[in-house]
């Protein structure tokens, strides 16, 4: 395996946050409504992880360092893991395991529907993230994994509907997301300069 130290560092950096938050909730640092705080942080964490994941292709083009791509799948899976925790937290702490209410929410609330759609797309990506699926799906795999852009849109919409009075934070994430998507437009992508001249073989490009 290439870049073992880099991979392990990324693993630890992504794993440490939910553990820290759980500890904080247990220690009472998160205030009187720790469940809600956990759900919010996990949701935002998933969005940040998705943005980081999507920044690695442009970074590869800029720097030519293959290490970006070496951890891209891992980070995508971390994003999925955060979303799973976010969803579990919502069911446990917000709905209090009231499954009939979950049915109502799924039918009636647009932001829940959008969130669940995003989750289902991520689920499809997570299931097909292994080498076997890559071989099996061939060229279709790349097309399928462009769903990540759709997930980003759904995630941002999901967040926009929750923000109620001040769009500043949302605007920051949305602009970063928009920038990352613009960098993928072929005319723009072709013009991304290589800052570091060294040529490296890139196994996969998205």
């Amino acid at each position, binding site marked *: 395996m290439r870049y073992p130290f880099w991979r392990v560092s990324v693993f630890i950096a992504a794993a440490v946050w939910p553990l820290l938050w759980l500890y904080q*909730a*247990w220690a009472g640092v998160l*205030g*009187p*409504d*720790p*469940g*809600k705080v*956990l759900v919010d942080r996990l949701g935002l964490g998933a969005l940040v992880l998705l943005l980081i994941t999507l920044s690695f292709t442009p970074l590869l083009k800029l720097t030519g360092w293959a290490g970006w791509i070496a951890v891209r799948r891992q980070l995508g899976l971390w994003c999925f893991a955060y979303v799973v925790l976010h969803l579990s937290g919502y069911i*446990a*702490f*917000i709905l*209090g395991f*009231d499954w009939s*209410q979950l049915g*109502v*929410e799924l039918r*009636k*609330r*647009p*932001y829940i529907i959008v969130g669940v759609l995003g989750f289902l797309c991520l689920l499809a990506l997570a299931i097909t993230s292994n080498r076997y699926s890559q071989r099996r799906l061939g060229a279709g795999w790349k097309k399928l994994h462009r769903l990540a852009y759709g997930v980003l849109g759904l995630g941002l919409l999901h967040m926009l*509907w*929750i923000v*109620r*009075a*001040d*769009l*500043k934070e949302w*605007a920051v994430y949305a602009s970063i997301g928009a920038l990352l998507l613009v960098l993928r437009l072929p005319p723009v992508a072709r013009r991304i300069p290589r800052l570091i001249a060294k040529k490296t073989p890139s196994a996969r490009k998205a």
Partner: protein
Amino acid sequence: MLIKVPKSSDCHESDVTPESLYLSRRNVLGAAVAGLAVSSLPRWASAEDAARYADVEAGSAPSWFAEKLPSTKWGAVTVKDEAITPFKDATHYNNFYEFGTDKGDPAANAGSLKTEPWSVVVDGEVGKPGRYALEDFMKPYQLEERIYRLRCVEAWSMVIPWIGFPISALLNVVELTSKAKFIRFETLQDPKTMPGQRSGFALIDWPYVEGLRLDEAMNPLAILAVGMYGRELPNQNGAPLRLVVPWKYGFKSIKSIVRISLVSEQPKTTWQSIAADEYGFYANVNPAVDHPRWTQARERRLPSGLFKPNVRDTQMFNGYSDEVASLYTGLDLRKNY
């Protein structure tokens, strides 16, 4: 500013230093320094009364408040068999968007709010309009402690011991004209001390505005509060003067009031202006009418632990049906949410 009334200010100057200690302590210093600061405060009436509730941070009460507090009617309204929310939670989990949109922002940022001197404008359809210094404004009123449930539209709730007086007492003093049909309240607008008002991305058109129908305001449960937990209001809870309407969602209970107007038309309230389909003028607590984005059937009574979530059913009019349901006979509460 340079000329001070000796009687009231002598006592106050000595309290200014502990106030700054109190603020820096909240942000920076640990519990040890907190203990030191509290023990170095002069012993006075409010310190004793604060001891009615556990772990209440001593503040520095304005002199008019300290003078009125001893004659407060304690426990004038209470809740049965429901625990009072810890002071720390009631003061560190707040919606007060003038100081930021996170629940912890008001506690962190509201130290900049200057509540002394404070004046309140009373205008509109009244016989005695004017601008009153808060100590004069407060003179006619007998303080009462009202322990109320507070239900936020976001589906969490608390139980808080307020200190205040019924709005009806105010309305008797200001001499309403026959045209007065609604009462409108306005929060301070001061971007210098209110960071939320400086945000260029805020959807709120400051200042924050709320209102009640006149008969709602006359209901004995509706109060203007100046204190909580046996002391004056902490800044983040809407010092020095706020509304408390326990049968309505929390956002109706406007904070840090600088203007009270009696008007003939239904006032346009802040949240109505932002999202009329989500936040109505009435905003009565109603488990049968969902918020478009979440259910109102249940609520998280705070503190709600991670492994012991304190989720309970929301009551019609937040449990105050007996007192207020008659205000709304014949009104379709689904349409008038």
